C-alpha cells in the first residue's frame, strides 16, 4: 500500500518534467524538422531521427534530480527507505516504458509529415541508425528500437539516480574528491599511466570492450540490464542508511 503511495508521488514528480520535455521535443523535432524536410530538396540519403539519444540524456538528468526531494518528502510522511526504493524501481520501469512509446509516436508523426510533404528525407530510429542503415526505416524496426530504448532508459536512469544518492551521502570533502577526482582520474591519471607503463593496453581494452558492447543489439541490451542491476543495487546500499541532513 505504501509502495503504491510512494510510486504515485514519484510518478507525479516525473510527470511534469516528461510533459515539458515531450512538448519541447515535439515542437523541435516534428515542427522544425518536419518543416525543414518540407522545403529541403537534398539527396535521397538524408535521414532524420535518433530522438532516442536526446531522450536518454533527458532521462539521465531526470535520474540525477530524483532523489533528494522525494527522499525528504517520504521521510516526512513515514515512508521507509526500502519502500521509497521499491517505489523508485516501479517509477523507473514505468518511465522507461512511457518514453519509448512517446518517441515511437514522434517517429510516426514525423514519418506522416515526411510522407505528406513528399520529402526524400528518411526517418530513422536509433536502432536503425546503429545497426541497419536506411533498411531500418521500415515500420517493423520500430519494435526492436522500442526494446532497445527501454533497457537503455533503465540503465541511464539507474546511473543518474545512483550518482545523486552518492553525492547526497558524501560530505563536502567527499563531494569535491569524487566530483573532481573521478574526471581527473579518468581523463588525466589513467591515460598517463597507460602511456607510461602499459603501452596503451588499458585504452585498447576499453575500446575493445565498448566495441563489443555496441557490436550487436543483444550485447547492448544485456550490458544495459547489467548496468541497471548494478546501479540499482548500489543505490539501495547507499539509500538504506541515508539520513535527513540539517539544511
Amino acid at each position, binding site marked *: 500500500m505504501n509502495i503504491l503511495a510512494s510510486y*504515485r508521488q514519484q510518478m507525479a514528480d516525473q510527470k511534469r518534467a516528461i510533459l515539458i520535455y515531450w512538448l519541447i521535443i515535439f515542437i523541435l523535432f516534428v515542427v522544425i524538422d518536419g518543416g525543414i524536410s518540407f522545403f529541403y530538396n537534398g539527396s535521397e540519403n538524408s535521414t532524420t531521427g535518433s530522438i532516442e539519444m536526446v531522450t536518454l540524456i533527458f532521462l539521465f538528468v531526470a535520474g540525477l534530480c530524483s532523489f533528494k526531494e522525494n527522499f525528504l518528502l517520504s*521521510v516526512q510522511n513515514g*515512508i*521507509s527507505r526500502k519502500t521509497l526504493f521499491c517505489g523508485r524501481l516501479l517509477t523507473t520501469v514505468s518511465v522507461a516504458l512511457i518514453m519509448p512509446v512517446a518517441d515511437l509516436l514522434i517517429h510516426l508523426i514525423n514519418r506522416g509529415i515526411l510522407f505528406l510533404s513528399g520529402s526524400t528525407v528518411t526517418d530513422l530510429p536509433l536502432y536503425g541508425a546503429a545497426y541497419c542503415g536506411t533498411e531500418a526505416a521500415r515500420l517493423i524496426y520500430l519494435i526492436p528500437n522500442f526494446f532497445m530504448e527501454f533497457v537503455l532508459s533503465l540503465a541511464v536512469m539507474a546511473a543518474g539516480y545512483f550518482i545523486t544518492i552518492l553525492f547526497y551521502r558524501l560530505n563536502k570533502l567527499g563531494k569535491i574528491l569524487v566530483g573532481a577526482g573521478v574526471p581527473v582520474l579518468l581523463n588525466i591519471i589513467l591515460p598517463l599511466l597507460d602511456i607510461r607503463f602499459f603501452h596503451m593496453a588499458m585504452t585498447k581494452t576499453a575500446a575493445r570492450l565498448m566495441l563489443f558492447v555496441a557490436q550487436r543489439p543483444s550485447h547492448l541490451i544485456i550490458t544495459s540490464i547489467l548496468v541497471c542491476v548494478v546501479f540499482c543495487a548500489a543505490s539501495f546500499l547507499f539509500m538504506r542508511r541515508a*539520513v535527513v541532513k540539517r539544511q
Partner: protein
Amino acid sequence: MNCIEVKNVSKRFAETEALSQVCLRFEENKIYGLLGRNGAGKSTLLNIIANRIFADSGQVFVNGMPAIENDRAQSLLYLMSEQTLYPEKMKIREVFKWTQNFYPSFDLAYAQNLAARFGLDTKKKVKALSTGYSSIFKIIVALSAGTPYILLDEPVLGLDAAHRELFYKVLIEKYSTDPCTVILSTHLIEEAAGVVEDIVIIKEGKIIQNQSCEALLSKGYTISGKAAAVDDFIRGKEIIGTDSLGGLKTAYILGALPEEEIPGDLELSRLDLQKLFVQLTNS
C-alpha cells in the same frame, strides 16, 4: 500496551554525545512536554523516533513494533519539525493532497478549517511562507494527519502571541475531541505548562526528569529572604540552585514542603515550571 517506547538509545555526532542510553515511554493519549536547553538532544530523540536519523545503539518501538524502517509503525506517528522537508515549489494545498496520499486518515476538511482560522493561504508555495506561517502550515498538517502520535518539535517557532494562543487552543480542542499522544518540544515553557500533562527534561543527552507536571512541581519550592536566614534553613536540603541580590537570597529546593515552622523573615513559594527547568538544567 500502546505507546512509544525508547530503549537504551544512544547517538553521537562526532565528539558530541547527543543522547546517552535514553529510556522513555510515551503513553497513549497524553500530552508530553519535552524540555531541554539548546543542543540537549530533544530534536535528535524525535528524529530517531521518526526514522529520520539512526541511533548508534538502542531501539524504538511504536505500539510494540520496531520503529526503524517500518512503514506500519511510522504510519502511526507524524513529526512536525523545525526543518521543512516539503519541496519548496509545492503549494500548501498540494501538501495536503500528498499527505492524504500517505496518511489515508488525513482530515482535509479539518486542515482547511484550521488554515482559515490561522489565516493561511493554501494557494501559496511552501517557499513563499514566512517563518511563522511555515510553522503554522506544518502544525496544521501534523494535527490533521490523523495519527495517534503527534510529535511537535518547536511548533511555535516564529509565531506571534495571537497565533501561539490559537495554537494552544486548537491543540486542546483537538485533544479533547480526538485524544492522541502529543509530544511537545519547546523552549516556551511557561506557555506550554498550561497544556502539558507530563514533563520529560533532557540534559546533555540524558533524561533527568520524567514525571507528571503536577508531581514535578509539587517536588520543589522556593525559599527567599535574608541570605543568612536562607542559608540556615536550606542546610541539609537538596538545593538545585540559588540566586542572590544584595543581602537577599532565593534558594530553589527539591523535596516536599517543609513540615517545620517557616521563620517569619523567610518567604516560601511554589516553584513554577520555568524556574524549576532553569535550575535543573543549569546545575
